């Protein structure tokens, strides 16, 4: 029994210096924590340089509910041995960090260690050197590049053919045939034409389409000696709409008939705008209403009020959720691509029409892709989906 006790004491004694030694290696005293592992530093893929991605595995003591580890400290240096400075303190459970405060083409070294209560922490683990560099091409967008080039080539090819004087056939679009009729009616009745280029700003392609059509409509209005009202939901749209209408009047040889204040800003607020436009409709009783651009929930409120004052209504938008409302409440509706084709169609210029045919050829290719892809996928060949998702 005594022998066992002696052995036990001996073992205890032997282990004591070991325990103390461990404590001594800890930088600021206290017990050591288990460090994280598998620390990796690499250049962030697909960026313009300027960042390095760090990742590591949690310290074995970082277990939810067990509060030994409070988090991780990351330090960075441009030299392997010295000069480390703290760049981030992260909560427990974190396994990655992106360092964005670095320069391109420079060597960096990192270390990470876990910290616990009372300033105790683990041994650090190191990673590096790592260099951040710029990627000039994003291979994940190869499919889009191929598709864009193909589509553009089609459009350009047909523009080129049109330039050579080839006759191109475009199917009639009823809504656009009716533009002249609508403006003529407004002239006869002595009532204004109301034009709404959507409720979004100039960074929306549908607004741009709306403004290009406004150019054509305003010119007709000027030629017919009618009046056009363009209440705008965005100041920038107002500024550009003014220029467009002014130039159209100038082209029609009627600069004197242009009234700046007919193209006015109302409010950026969606429903405030609707209320104001509804008010204009009820007071001015326009004979023709155009809604061409991006619309949201206000589409039906505008179109129903317009219908109630007896206006001819022509709408056009690429917002699928609003199309049913316009179709139900307006006389003519340009659906999706017809909105974008309208300006080309109305101008009748061969170059513009050529682009429409190019666009249709693009559609043929996409249809072919859809059919071939569906057949292939059905039989378990996933080439096409790989191309589209990769």
């Amino acid at each position, binding site marked *: 029994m005594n022998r066992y006790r002696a052995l036990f004491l001996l073992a205890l004694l032997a282990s004591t210096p070991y325990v103390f030694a461990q404590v001594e290696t800890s930088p600021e005293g206290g017990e050591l924590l288990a460090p994280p592992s598998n620390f990796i530093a690499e250049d962030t893929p697909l960026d313009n340089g300027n960042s390095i991605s760090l990742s590591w595995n949690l310290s074995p003591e970082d277990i939810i509910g067990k509060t030994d580890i409070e988090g991780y400290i990351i330090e960075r240096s441009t030299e392997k041995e010295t000069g480390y400075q703290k760049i981030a303190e992260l909560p427990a459970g974190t396994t990655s960090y992106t360092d964005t405060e670095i320069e391109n083409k420079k060597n960096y070294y990192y270390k990470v260690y876990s910290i616990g209560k009372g300033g105790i922490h683990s041994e650090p683990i190191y990673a590096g050197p790592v260099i951040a560099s710029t990627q000039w091409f994003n291979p994940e967008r190869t499919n889009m590049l191929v598709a864009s080039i193909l589509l553009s080539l089609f459009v350009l090819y047909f523009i080129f053919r049109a330039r050579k004087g080839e006759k191109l056939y475009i199917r009639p679009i009823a809504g656009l045939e009716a533009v002249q009729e609508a403006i003529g009616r407004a002239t006869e009745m002595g009532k204004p034409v109301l034009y709404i280029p959507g409720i979004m700003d100039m960074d929306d392609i549908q607004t741009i389409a709306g403004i290009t059509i406004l150019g054509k409509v305003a010119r007709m209005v000027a030629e017919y000696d009618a009046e056009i009202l363009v209440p705008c939901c965005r100041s920038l749209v107002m500024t550009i709409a003014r220029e467009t209408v002014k130039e159209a009047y100038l082209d029609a040889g009627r600069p004197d008939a242009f009234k700046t204040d007919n193209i006015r800003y109302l409010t950026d607020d969606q429903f405030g705008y609707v209320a104001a436009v509804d008010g204009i409709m009820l007071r001015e009783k326009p004979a023709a209403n155009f809604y061409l651009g991006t619309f949201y929930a206000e589409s039906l409120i505008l179109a129903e009020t317009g219908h109630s004052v007896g206006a001819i209504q022509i709408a056009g938008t*690429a917002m699928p959720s609003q199309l049913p409302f316009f179709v139900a409440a307006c006389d003519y509706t340009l659906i999706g691509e017809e909105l974008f084709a309208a300006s080309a169609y109305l101008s009748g210029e061969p170059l513009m029409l050529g682009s429409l045919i190019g666009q249709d050829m693009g559609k043929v290719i996409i249809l072919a892709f859809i059919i071939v892809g569906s057949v292939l996928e059905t039989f378990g060949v996933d080439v096409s989906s790989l191309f589209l998702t990769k």
Partner: protein
Amino acid sequence: MKQRLPLLITLIVGLTLIVQFFSPGLSFIQERFTNWFLVVIVFAFLLGFLSLVKVNITKIKRRSEDWGYSIPLLIALFTMAIIGIGWGIGEGTIFNWLFMNLMVPMSATMFSLLAFFVASAAYRAFRARNLEAAMLLIAATIVMLGRVPISSAGFLSYLKLDAIANWIMTYPNTVGQRAIMIGAALGVVATSLRIILGIERAYMGEE
């Protein structure tokens, strides 16, 4: 020159932004352009404000038709601006109180007009003029019933309207929406090319 310069700017900016989409190294360009756009918008906003004030003051001065509406408009405009600039717009301010108790209910009122307008538009639009219109009419009725609890009440529950409505929304509806989206996306490509290449100039007031 007056017309050439804007076209040149359009061409260069358009092409640069397309190229940067494929190149992570150039992505800062888009960020910069977005910031410029925001700056331009702020100045344009000033123009909008001036237009609003000018149009309405002129109306009041000339006693044009319905000039009375311009008075509350100007009062509201300046009250909100002064209160907002003077006392802030955060939680607990007068601006916030006015926003929550005037602006929000008024917006909600305009929004709820939809409930009525949907009914009157449906009354006019859903008439079985031909085969297509009849199909639309039937589909609309099924979806309207299938989406509300009454479809599972009494004899209606045997018709499994909710399941049919779900099917209509998931398949025919999605197919149609996708077709429109694909067409519109192509339209966007063609329109963008026309603008970048300077073929489409109507937005600059030029034929």
